[in-house]
């Protein structure tokens, strides 16, 4: 039977649909799958899917690894800037906090010693050479600063005014080679002289060789140099070196001389007007206000050496060491006021 050509597509449609209906019926009836068609379909299409998956995964990696990271990079840059700003602010705040702590200590010290005229000053510079240990402060002659005035912090002795200029002053630190401070050991009240070495550590000299000096012992001002009030902390014993007739003691300064920012200048000369003991008054330099600091210290040292260091005094040492502070220093400890 010949099908008219105009009906051939329709016949084909019916045939195709019928074939597929039979295929469906076969699958349902036998409960079996037409595996061949599935395999072919999968074989045809899965490579494309795999390729698509590969492309998408690569695009995904490119997106998240690069394109999207542009925002991350910009965000990272912004965060880094914020972090830098915050670090800067944090440092400023830490500096302000540290300054507040230092100023509070200065104020506390000032209030605790209200009867001592003193002036707060700011360290504005340091020495320009490697051999000396000096700093400049922002107070000068016009503020009442005079040469040889003591410069301290609540931690301890800093030094003394070596040059009083109109608006600034130079402070000779205790670590300078030319510096010297009349001191005593807090425990035994043994006197000596602390000298600068140019290094961070100080030397305490004129302490008898047979004097037992424990490490860590506190070193205080003796007040005998007529510059520093008595009992101000100078440092503590770091180590001792045997010698004859005097041992050399290394002293770590109490004041943080490597990071000075604010200091106190004891502006009174009256409070330091120590009334020397008769036997110590033998040297006119001791009482001379124009005497150089080094001379002052040396003078005091010389006056003090017999009291604690000479062989003759060793026998009478217990009496001497007790007698010297009592005889020489009449001002109350730490105040410098004459009594």
């Amino acid at each position: 039977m010949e099908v008219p050509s105009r009906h051939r597509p329709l016949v084909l449609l019916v045939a195709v649909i019928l074939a597929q209906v039979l295929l469906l019926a076969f699958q349902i009836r036998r409960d079996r799958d037409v595996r061949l068609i599935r395999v072919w379909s999968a074989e045809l299409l899965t490579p494309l899917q795999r390729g698509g998956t590969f492309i998408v995964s690569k695009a995904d990696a490119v997106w998240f690894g690069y394109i999207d990271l542009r925002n991350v990079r910009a965000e990272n840059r912004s965060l880094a800037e914020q972090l830098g700003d915050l670090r800067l602010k944090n440092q400023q705040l830490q500096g302000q906090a540290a300054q507040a702590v230092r100023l509070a200590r200065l104020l506390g010290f000032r209030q605790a010693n209200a009867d001592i005229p003193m002036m707060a000053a700011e360290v504005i510079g340091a020495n320009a050479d490697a051999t000396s240990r000096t700093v400049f402060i922002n107070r000068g002659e016009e503020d009442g600063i005079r040469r040889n005035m003591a410069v301290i912090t609540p931690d301890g002795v800093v030094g003394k005014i070596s040059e009083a200029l109109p608006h600034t002053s130079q402070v000779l630190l205790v670590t300078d080679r030319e510096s010297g401070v009349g001191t005593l050991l807090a425990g035994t009240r043994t006197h000596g002289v602390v000298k600068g070495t140019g290094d961070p550590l100080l030397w305490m000299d004129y302490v008898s060789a047979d004097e037992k000096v424990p490490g860590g012992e506190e070193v205080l001002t003796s007040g005998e140099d007529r510059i520093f009030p008595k009992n101000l902390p100078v440092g503590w014993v770091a180590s001792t070196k045997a010698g004859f007739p005097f041992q050399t003691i290394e002293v770590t300064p109490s004041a943080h001389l490597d990071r000075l920012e604010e200091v106190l200048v004891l502006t009174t000369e009256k409070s330091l007007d120590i009334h020397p003991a008769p036997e110590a008054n033998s040297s006119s330099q001791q009482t001379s206000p124009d005497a150089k600091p080094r001379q002052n210290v040396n003078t005091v040292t010389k006056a003090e050496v017999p009291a604690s260091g000479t062989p003759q005094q060793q026998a009478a040492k217990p009496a001497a060491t007790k007698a010297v502070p009592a005889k020489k220093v009449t001002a109350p400890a730490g105040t410098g006021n004459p009594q």
Partner: protein
Amino acid sequence: MDSQSQHIEVHKFYAGAVLGICFLALVLQAFLNRFSPRFGILELPLLVVVYFGLSRRNSVIGLVLGTAVGLLQDGISHTPIGLYGIAKGFIGYIASSIGARLDTEHPISRFILMFLFFHIHQVLLALMMRLLLAQHAPFFTVHLLISSLLNSVIGVFLFAGLDRLRKQ
């Protein structure tokens, strides 16, 4: 009828374009569903079957192409082989027949035709599932309506894009 059909242009495509687009539609259909089940609202194989049926205006080619695409869709789906084959073969045949008689180049006519073909396709699927597989399948739901509208809109743009693959 014959004189009318002679005035309607039969479009031919570059070599491999038809097969490539059909494969791409099938791959994309499976591929997009992998990322989100929401892409299941699309019926890309149906769109290309309708497009090529309307363009080639040869009912045999439409039938064969629709059946092939449907069978491949069955092959990579969890449906009995032949379900989409019958439905899409029928749609390919109808689309080719209509394309030979009507102007299907205008976007509105394409939208309406796509909308109708989508629902015919769905009715065929539902019928076969009910009659042959004894499974309940709806003839019409709001979801299907939204899906048909969406596919019709996509079809308008897709058909315009596929027009560029035609030989001048």
